[in-house]
């Protein structure tokens, strides 16, 4: 059965063409801000009607892999996350590009994406039933504490400025409450008949906060920007990261892959949660936590390995339990159902050949992705040499197009503009933007699971500390919140002492440190 499945992909030129084309289109969708994996899979789903089951699923899987990975390109080069999964990639990929290491950052991200992706496929093949059983142990409270744990990345990002970081995070969480409430569908903070009743989309928030605010800031700092020297991106060999450096980060790669796979299998929380959790864990376990957010290669590895490792994991509940964990997984499941395949515990017995065909396609799509993105790397890096006064208006047009294309409503485009202005004001007032975006992305699931948990247990919160899984997540959350804050306070004291002794220059931006 296994060899038949593998052969059905490798010996079929049509299937190979689907994987090749799908990966390329996926990369394009992932790299353009506003276009996402869901849109890519949705667009090509009708096309699979006319294809065989294995060809159709190979095309959809390749689109999925390409789009998740493609998000790293705009996240690093433009500091705009192409997908929610690559929000964390911006934190270190962006600063690396700023100091002329854009090529190295992209190369490394591509390579670790491949490693994370391929290991997750192997895990999918051998551990599917076991992983599915583990996912079933999660009730609403376990999910809520798991998402709360992912939110600890906010502490990592705001170690030095806890007050401003928390204000930003709570503002993001508030934005997520606008629109229809979970469980009751009561419309909050919006007229019930307006487009706002559906809430804000994560695309408009991400593009507004990250992209539009930067474009507006460029206009306000035009003279300063003109005086900045043009950064030359260093040429890279291979994937930019040396074999030695990769080996040095083996522990981090394994840690991030495991986190990605585990988070991937939990329905409802996807690549973004995995990447954030992995980033927090990497910072806490790193020997150089102070470099995180300033262009740390470890931060980049943690984010990109984990978000691609979720791709294999996300297939587990979809295939073995028939539960689609994300929008993309739901579309992939539709692809299976279109071809008369019913996902569930019996799928390996009834559709074994197709299953192993899908696994082969996933592995192959990862291989195609790593080769294709590496060969396109010189073109990506060229983007950095385009003058900002030309590049930024073009990006704006792409952002508007991406926002409009998601739902075909002008409301999303207007929201993008409004959040761009709010993001610009936040930058001006030194309020970090990232916590707001993270709060916005994670809060809806957190609220839904917490409230479901409270209702299911009739208001009994004791499960939060009697359930081993909840307890582990809560303890880890406390540790992960405390460590960056303690480190931040220590650093701040050390710096102040150094300034008092005249050993270090006083930094302007830290005058109003929290």
């Amino acid at each position, binding site marked *: 059965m296994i060899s038949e499945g593998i052969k059905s992909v490798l010996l079929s030129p049509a299937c190979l063409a689907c994987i090749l084309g799908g990966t390329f289109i996926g990369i394009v969708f992932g790299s353009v801000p506003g276009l996402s994996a869901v849109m890519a899979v949705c667009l090509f789903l009708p096309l699979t009607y006319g294809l065989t089951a294995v060809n159709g699923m190979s095309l959809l899987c390749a689109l999925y892999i390409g789009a998740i990975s493609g998000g790293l390109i705009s996240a690093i080069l433009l500091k705009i996350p192409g997908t929610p999964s690559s929000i964390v990639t911006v934190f270190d990929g962006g600063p690396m590009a700023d100091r002329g290491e854009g090529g190295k950052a992209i190369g490394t991200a591509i390579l670790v994406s491949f490693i994370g992706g391929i290991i997750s496929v192997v895990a999918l093949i051998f551990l599917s039933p076991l992983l599915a059983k583990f996912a079933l142990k999660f009730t609403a409270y376990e999910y809520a504490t798991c998402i709360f744990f992912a939110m600890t990345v906010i502490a990592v990002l705001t170690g030095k400025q806890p007050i401003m970081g928390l204000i930003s995070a709570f503002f993001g969480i508030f934005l997520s409450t606008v629109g229809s409430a979970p469980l009751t569908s009561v419309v909050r903070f919006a007229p019930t008949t307006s487009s706002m009743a559906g809430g804000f989309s994560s695309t408009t928030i991400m593009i507004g906060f990250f992209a539009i605010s930067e474009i507006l800031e460029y206009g306000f700092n035009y003279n*300063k920007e003109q005086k900045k020297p043009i950064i030359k991106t260093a040429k890279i060999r291979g994937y930019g990261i040396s074999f030695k450096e990769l080996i040095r980060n083996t522990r981090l790669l394994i840690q991030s892959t495991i986190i990605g796979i585990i988070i991937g299998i939990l329905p409802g929380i996807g690549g973004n949660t995995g990447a954030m959790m992995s980033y927090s864990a990497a910072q806490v376990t790193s020997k150089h936590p102070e470099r995180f957010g300033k262009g740390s290669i470890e931060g980049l590895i943690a984010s990109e390995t984990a978000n691609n490792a979720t791709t294999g994991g996300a297939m587990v509940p979809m295939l073995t339990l028939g539960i689609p964990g994300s929008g993309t997984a739901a579309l992939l499941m539709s692809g299976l159902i279109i071809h008369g395949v019913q996902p569930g515990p019996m799928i390996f017995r009834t559709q074994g050949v197709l299953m192993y065909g899908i696994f082969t396609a996933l592995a192959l799509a990862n291989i195609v992705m790593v080769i294709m993105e590496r060969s396109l790397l010189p073109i990506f890096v060229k983007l950095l040499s385009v003058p900002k*006064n030309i590049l930024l208006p073009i990006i704006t047009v792409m952002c508007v197009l991406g926002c409009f294309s998601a739902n075909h409503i002008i409301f999303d485009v*207007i929201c993008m*503009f409004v959040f761009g202005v709010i993001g610009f004001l936040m930058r001006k007032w030194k309020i970090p933007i990232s916590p707001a975006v993270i709060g916005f992305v994670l809060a809806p699931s957190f609220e839904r699971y917490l409230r479901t948990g409270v209702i299911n247990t*009739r208001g009994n919160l004791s499960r939060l500390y009697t359930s081993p899984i909840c307890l582990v997540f809560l303890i880890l959350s406390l540790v992960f919140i405390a460590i960056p804050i303690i480190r931040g306070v220590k650093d701040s004291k050390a710096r102040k002492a150094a300034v008092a002794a005249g050993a270090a220059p006083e930094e302007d931006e830290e005058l109003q440190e929290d």
Partner: protein
Amino acid sequence: MKLKTSKKGTDILSSILLILLGAFIFFYAIRYHEVMLTNDLTDAFLPQVCGGAIAVLALVRLIKCLLNKDEKYCASHEVERGEITDLLRGLGSIALLGAYVFTYRNLGFLVSTALYLFIQLTLLTQKGKRHWLLTVIISIVLPALLYLLFVKVLNYTLPTGILG
């Protein structure tokens, strides 16, 4: 009269605005307290936590700002001429983007995008360094290429506006 700004002034203003925002969220959310499901935390729970937290945190920040007597932090600096030009350029960019977004449907993708690109590229390039030909080419060719890609290849619908 010359414009003057100080870091302390900006921080105090932003803190007050954040306190007002937090208080608004907190009190506005009271209307969602109605219990619709037994044992539920209600729809008001999360917004009130957010509003309360924003107001309290901003208040702490305001107090810290008021107590901070650091000379460099309190000193006001005169806004220079270059900064005023930048301010106008920034405000111009906001107005232009706003106009682009609000006319996107009525003028259509092609016309609004071409106009936006032309004006924005001109606004963000210094007077002596403007390449008119390049600006015109980008303003016309890019929207056309994007239109072809999205509408003809990917089958997306884009507003046609006055050309429709």
